């Protein structure tokens, strides 16, 4: 798997893993992120069953596996959280956070264990001794209950499926290099998977004034610097919900 250190100030670290060459092509590629504060860690959207071995092995090199404190599920999709029961098997004390709408659905992936619901308005997430990471509502963008994460310290916005791109195998860059070309890889996805213009614009309003260095989607390349603004502008103008 590719690995990239996105942020490190000594206390807080963001590490990216993705583009696993051994991933079967029957699976959508997902990006994995590990957020570490002190010696405690959080996995936002830890991923599906199929990629657990890759992710768990990579994470093991970065942090003691029992120090994973939080599994955050932005929404209920299988590529987001179907690995839950595998994580619980090795991190029995982990806190599982998910939109309240999905707390009774996610355990269907195979874990008879309560999931803590994030209220509609969002919340701050405690990680180690820190409590600055925020779950920002992104309802209906695309799931009916959905959150993105903002870390003001790292200035990173974890955007889940927002900003996702379905990249051809030839595009292996971790970061967006050419925004205009990148639009070609994400336009169809956003038009089809995002159901509501009103919801999409409400999310843009929530994040547009945040200080963001990087926007990290769950699929495709990471937006950095000016490309974050470009993305938000492009997304604002996009008509979504094209299947009806």
């Amino acid at each position, binding site marked *: 798997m590719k690995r990239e250190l996105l942020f490190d100030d000594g206390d807080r670290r963001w590490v990216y893993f993705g583009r696993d060459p051994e991933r079967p092509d029957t699976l959508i590629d997902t990006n994995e992120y590990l957020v570490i504060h002190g010696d405690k860690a959080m996995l936002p959207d830890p991923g599906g*069953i199929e990629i657990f*071995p890759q992710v*768990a*092995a990579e994470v*093991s*090199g970065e942090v003691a*596996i029992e120090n994973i404190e939080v599994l955050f599920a932005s929404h209920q999709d299988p590529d987001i959280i179907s690995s839950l*029961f*595998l994580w619980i098997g*090795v991190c029995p004390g982990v806190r599982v956070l998910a939109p309240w709408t999905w707390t009774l659905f996610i355990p269907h992936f195979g874990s008879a264990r309560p999931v803590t619901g994030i209220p509609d308005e969002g919340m701050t997430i405690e990680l180690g001794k820190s409590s600055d990471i925020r779950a920002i509502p992104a309802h209906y963008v695309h799931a009916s209950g959905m959150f993105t994460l903002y870390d003001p310290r790292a200035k990173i916005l974890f955007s889940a499926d927002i900003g996702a791109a379905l990249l051809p195998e030839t595009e292996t860059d971790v970061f967006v290099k050419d925004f205009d070309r990148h639009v070609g890889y994400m336009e169809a996805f956003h038009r089809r998977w995002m159901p509501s213009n009103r919801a999409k614009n409400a999310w843009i309003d929530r994040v547009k004034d945040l200080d963001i260095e990087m926007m990290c989607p769950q699929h495709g390349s990471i937006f950095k610097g000016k490309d974050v603004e470009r993305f938000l502008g492009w997304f604002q103008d996009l008509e979504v919900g094209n299947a009806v």
Partner: protein
Amino acid sequence: MSESSTLRSRVLGLHLAFERMLPFVTEAKRISVNAQVVAARLGEQGKPYAAVVVELGETASMLEDLIGQVASSFRLFVRSVADMGQQELRLHSYQRTSARIDRFPPEPWRKPENLAAAQSKFRHAIRTERARLLDSVSELARRIRDIELIVDEIRTVASRRSRFVAFVAMLESTKVEGERSEIETVSVGIGDLAERLSAASEDLRKRVRDLDEELDKLVREGHNQNIESQRGGN
């Protein structure tokens, strides 16, 4: 022990064989009701036939009861197989994780002490899952033996009791004038049902036996693997 695709296909085969048993209950009941009707119509003359009617009714409800027992045992069995699926998935995933960590080339960001701790954690998880899986397989083996006993009873019903009833019916029918052909129809029906039930329960038994063998094999393999993993392998 993690290779239980044979187990799954055998469970499916057993399920299909079991489903073929279900119509026999309705058929046995129908024949029993027919026999009652015929006996009632015979009045006084039907007296000697009454014992057969009672026997038939008892046989039908015995069959219903036994097949019901197989159904509920089988439901539990299938649930345990489904639970095992998750245990297997966990075992495979942890084995793959551990193998991957083993293959990691050293990188500056990979802390060897973390990797070593993770490796021992995953190896422990592998041992735990293997032990759980073995428990589940042993539990399945116990359940299948219960099912085997019930299936044996069904075979007895099919091969002895029903044949006996059919024979008695035929015997009695020869003493009765008039309604003979109808009694004969009933008794031929019973004979035919007994024949088919016998074949179906024989098939069911064979499948239960195969499954039993498969489970025994898995238990043995599981024990061996447990011994090996306690010696330090994966």
